[in-house]
């Protein structure tokens, strides 16, 4: 299988008045063709910064890519591209769906115009041809009466419908990679189910490779093949969905899995929260970032950051509990 995307040791910081915020502190992962990778984590863990850096959407300053590479389609390093060169990739080779369908569409343009914009720019289609494609795209994402709908403005659409329009826009140029940043967070559950279904369907039909960023583990179980768990700017554990849900090894992943409620639980079990708060990335701790909240922390965890180790096949994680010298086994 070919990798459509390879991110290696990516580090992104923001310069603020208070100092340097290290939002992403060395992230590495791969995405294969036709695969859905979910990046999960809580607010502020750097998952959105990672995805927006792949799209080169964060203005510099204040952000700087301090290290690392993002190899797209085996040849192009997105980090090295000029903004001009990036423009020809953004929207045509890589598409993006944003979290908030209420604010990510332009309220002063008809949705037809917004869908055709990329087609005209990247593929040099005439307005007429682009319009025809826009109608097909709207049908593909399940919007009825597309001929009338393309003449309407975003305010005439509901939240779920706007998210469908966003997906149509991001798919317009048949991108090789689709990044969906919390695509269903702003939507109601019945609409969320529709959108997830649509994404799964599109993956089957067009074979798109998708990175989905979310904090909803139910959505992850539903759509993803592989999962990367992020905490404080790093990936702490990575593996197939089954690795993460059934044989998680990192204490943070355990914490996440224990603190969520399941609708199919028979009895009311006590919720086990992760006590405390994530560290301040203005001044990240010396050792493991999770050590302060980790019930299994060792002395070494406070002093030295653990390296990422492979557990089995695709399953890897960064935790001192994996070290051979640790005698106690907790599982």
């Amino acid at each position, binding site marked *: 299988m070919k990798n459509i995307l390879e991110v290696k040791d990516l580090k992104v910081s923001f310069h603020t008045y208070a100092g340097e915020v290290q939002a992403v502190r060395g992230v590495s992962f791969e995405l294969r063709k036709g695969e859905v990778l979910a990046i999960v984590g809580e607010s502020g863990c750097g998952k959105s910064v990672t995805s927006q850096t792949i799209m080169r959407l964060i203005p510099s300053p204040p952000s700087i890519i301090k290290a690392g590479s993002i190899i797209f389609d085996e040849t192009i390093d997105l980090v090295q591209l000029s903004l001009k060169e990036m423009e020809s990739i953004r929207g045509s080779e890589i598409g993006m769906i944003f979290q908030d369908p209420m604010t990510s569409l332009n309220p002063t343009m008809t949705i037809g115009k917004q869908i055709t914009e990329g087609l005209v720019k990247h593929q040099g289609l005439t307005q007429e041809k682009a319009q025809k494609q826009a109608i097909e795209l709207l049908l593909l994402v399940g919007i009825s009466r597309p001929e009338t709908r393309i003449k309407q403005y975003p305010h005439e659409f509901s939240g779920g419908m706007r998210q469908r329009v966003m997906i149509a826009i991001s798919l317009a140029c048949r991108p090789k990679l689709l990044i969906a940043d919390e695509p269903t967070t702003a939507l109601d*559950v*019945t609409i969320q*189910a529709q959108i997830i279904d649509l994404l799964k369907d599109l993956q089957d039909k067009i074979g798109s490779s998708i990175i989905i960023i979310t904090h909803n*583990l139910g959505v992850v*179980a539903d759509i993803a093949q592989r999962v990367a768990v992020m905490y404080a700017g790093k990936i702490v554990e990575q593996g197939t969905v089954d690795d993460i849900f059934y044989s998680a090894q990192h204490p943070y992943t355990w914490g996440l*899995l224990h603190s969520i409620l399941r609708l199919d639980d028979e009895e009311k079990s006590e*919720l086990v929260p992760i006590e405390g708060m994530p560290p301040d990335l203005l001044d990240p701790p010396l050792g493991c970032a999770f050590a302060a909240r980790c019930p299994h922390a060792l002395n070494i965890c406070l002093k030295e950051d653990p390296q990422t180790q492979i557990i089995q096949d695709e399953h890897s994680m960064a935790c001192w509990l994996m070290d051979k010298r640790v005698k106690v086994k907790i599982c």
Partner: protein
Amino acid sequence: MSETILEVNNLKKYFGVTNGVLKAVDNVSLSIQRGETFGLVGESGCGKSTLGRTIMRLYSATDGEVLFNGENVHQLKGGRLKQFNREMQMVFQDPYASLNPRMTVGDIIAEGIDIHRLYSGVKRRERVAELLHTVGLPEEHASRFPHEFSGGQRQRIGIARALAIKPQFIVADEPVSALDVSVQAQVINLFKRLQKENGLTYLFISHDLAMVKHIADRCGVMYLGALMEVAKASELYRKPLHPYTVALLSAIPIPDPEVERKRERVILEGDVPSPINPPPGCRFFARCPKAMPECQVNAPRLIAVETEHYVACHLYK
């Protein structure tokens, strides 16, 4: 023996809008027992928050009545009204917008104490410290301002404010939806502990069904301003009767890949229709997979199908 603390009878709350009448709450009846948690679930725009606010008299009712300890809330005046305001408090959804950024945490928490002239001076300071301690914050935080706190800590402050004047009843409107999952669990456990310690009654409003199932004893499902089903929380999840409840439960992904691979979904077509000038008949008619001709004409009434299991649907008669 359970005792009814709150009774809502045929409550209506309409808003006049430019092109008609928005029926946010339309003919809702329910009762809540002392010491229980009643969960109210539904999608955005279904009127669950409006119902909570009308019960608290933050909105005046268009029609119907709210009886709190046997007294009609919407007819209270003077001292009785002030007393009612002490007995029912609210915790809001957005911990970033519901705390005054110019007031110290101590003053925010003590605002109710000041209004009702319960304590002053040293006593007031002691009470604030005690409240901070109850919600798991150090008492030194009383002199800080809201911007110095994280979302979870702010929600704790909001809870301390609600508890300050020792209410019997708390309306919690989506109190954890703005928080991260690991923090949600902390705040939910706090709600449960406080209920046990103070014998509180909760009306817990949320769109997160797993959350409501976890915290509520009984549960009501709302759709477009009307109650569709009311049952014990465990019963509602084990045996949902209303087609809307079935679809709603089925839409929620379970965080378990094995279960997800096997599951068949009932996916609802379309969106929630507008509550402005709703058509006669069942509110759910347009999206219902089991709709019958009768549903378009007559609105079903909420009736008891089994003991303590109420449903508003023509399928059950």
